[in-house]
């Protein structure tokens, strides 16, 4: 299983929100490029970069910075947050991002996901952000009427191979991931899953790794790495 450090960018800084709330922000660094470089040095094999301003605004806001990260590190980078047009998808993949994550677009504009998948195949990930089993959209400010499993099945039909599954009740809380919810999703759909949100110990990494046979392929870790409660090198050792 992959352990993927998250770099969430807000107003040019590397931050972490608690449950996606803008007024509960922790700033980890004012230099996200340096942060990316540090994770690379410490052995990360992937990076997960999110444009938080973009997610809230509905269009990318930290494009230049993301470009800088992608071109600075020699790691594959998956990018999400505010990607709502095929032009943005093309631009990000064209500058060298390995994969892009479509979130809100998957609910509001399934045609975009369809078109993106036809053009870029498995380079298109769908981010499914759930709260109480329902899909959250618009930077987690709005709840949709879809269940996460329904959306999972829909995007699978479109040809999507991989999702980033986030439980927003857990995100930034350091209270453990939603292992049960992740397992349910993995069983309901034939998708590869990158689990995100709540990871706070090496034990959590172990629990998610146990789901590897069901298709859980990676874990995005944010606050736990920045606050030091999880040490990347140790997490990587367990996950391998």
């Amino acid at each position, binding site marked *: 299983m992959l352990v993927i450090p998250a770099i969430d960018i807000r107003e040019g800084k590397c931050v972490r929100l608690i449950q996606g709330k803008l007024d509960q922000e922790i700033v980890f660094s004012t230099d996200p490029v340096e942060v990316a470089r540090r994770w690379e040095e410490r052995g990360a094999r992937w990076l997960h970069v999110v444009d938080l301003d973009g997610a809230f605004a509905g269009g990318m806001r930290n494009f230049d910075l993301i470009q800088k990260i992608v071109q600075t*590190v020699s790691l*594959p980078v998956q990018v999400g947050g505010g990607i709502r047009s095929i032009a943005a998808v093309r631009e990000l*993949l064209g*500058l*060298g991002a*390995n994969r892009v994550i479509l979130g809100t677009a998957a609910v509001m504009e399934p045609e975009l996901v369809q078109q993106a998948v036809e053009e*870029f195949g498995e380079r298109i990930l769908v981010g499914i952000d759930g709260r109480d089993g329902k899909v959250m959209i618009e930077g987690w400010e709005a709840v949709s009427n879809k269940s996460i499993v329904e959306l999972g099945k829909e995007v699978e039909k479109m040809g999507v191979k991989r999702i980033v599954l986030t439980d927003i009740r857990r995100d930034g809380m350091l209270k453990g991931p939603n292992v049960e919810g992740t397992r349910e999703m993995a069983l309901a759909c034939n998708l590869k899953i990158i689990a995100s949100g709540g990871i706070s110990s090496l034990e959590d990494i172990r629990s998610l790794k146990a789901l590897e046979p069901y298709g859980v392929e990676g874990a995005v870790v944010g606050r736990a790495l920045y606050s030091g409660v999880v040490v990347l090198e140790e997490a990587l050792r367990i996950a391998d």
Partner: protein
Amino acid sequence: MIVIVDYGMGNLRSVQKGLAKAGFEAIISADPEVVGGARGLVLPGVGAFGDAMTNLAEQGLDQAIRRFAGSGRPFLGICLGLQLMFESSEENGWHAGLGLLQGRVVRLPEGLKIPHMGWNALRQLRTEPVLAGIPEETYFYFVHSYYVQPTDPAVVAAVTDYGLEVPAVVSRDNLIGIQFHPEKSSAWGLRILKNFGELVGNAGYTRD
């Protein structure tokens, strides 16, 4: 000067533009003497193997390319250009290739979607100068129905998984072949062209 071999088989301009974007000027030529005098040679190509060899032979380019390849200067084959580097192909019958590397070109197995067209991730098997700085798992754009089976597996520097392991980058000494299209593969494709340009820049005019 980098020379792109013009033998009437497509995608020359996009390769030239890609090299220009990467900071290297290249000329397109069908003249065996210009090809022979190049500092670095690119053999691109889209189309059928047999037609390509016929065109090369008619213009005397096949011998010019073989001589160039033997001179130690950097050579890059792209897509059909890579396939032409090998000894033979089973595309529409049997055709002899340039024979710069040992091995043959065969059709992708039945049951796979053919042509293989789209973005696939590269798995690097060893350090390869032309892939310097390319992250693992980087996606490149492929369009092909045939693939190379080198006699010596050690020439394969990188593969992609498409139902089977498809050799995506091969190299031996000064010879490099790439199955995908770096000129259509975003910033990382340009990085490969840049790496090749630098190899050309660093190589001297030895032997010839």
